[in-house]
């Protein structure tokens, strides 16, 4: 059976041909992946990144944009490998959210 991400040959919408810039957070995700996969660190491979993206499931795979898929996959793989824990990640996300909320008042 064809898996969801294996889309070669399916009908598709028109290709958007305009140039676009990347948000700072997207550039940061790209940099994180390059550092994690470089020859010195070798924390994870691009093959693991791809496997993690394929495993997001049809819902998230379609809804997330390119770098949202990357950071979701990177996060799951770092948890799998024990580089970060779910608890650490949850605490950091709350911290970041609180910092962001302060800027909104």
């Amino acid at each position, binding site marked *: 059976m064809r*898996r969801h991400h*294996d889309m070669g*040959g399916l009908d598709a919408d028109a290709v958007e041909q305009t140039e676009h810039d990347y948000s700072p957070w997207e550039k940061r995700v790209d940099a994180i992946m390059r550092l994690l996969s470089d020859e010195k660190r070798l924390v*994870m*491979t691009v*093959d*693991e990144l*791809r*496997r993690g993206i394929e495993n997001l499931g049809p819902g998230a795979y379609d809804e997330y944009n390119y770098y949202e898929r990357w950071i979701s996959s990177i996060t799951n793989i770092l948890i799998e490998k024990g580089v970060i824990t779910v608890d650490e990640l949850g605490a950091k996300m709350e911290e970041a959210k609180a910092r962001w909320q302060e800027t909104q008042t």
Partner: protein
Amino acid sequence: MNARFAVGDKVRVREAYPPGHIRTPHFIRGKEGTVTAVIGDFANPEELAYGRPGIPKQTLYWVAFPQTGLWPDYAGPEHDTAVVDVFDHWLVGEQQ
């Protein structure tokens, strides 16, 4: 490099649908094509995807598939091909 196939060899892609990370797109599985280049030996991405070393390395080929063999409603010229990267372990010789 000890490639099993050479340029010009007729090959068939295994018709298999295992779970996991696979680089062989579904639309060429079970299809016949012709080797157009022997690219080199690479660690197996199906293993690298799970944090393993991917050894033994697998030979990667370019295989050309007639478009009319891939898509039942293909309306382009008869000689059109799609060239796809395929690793050795996905290929069988046409006689096998």
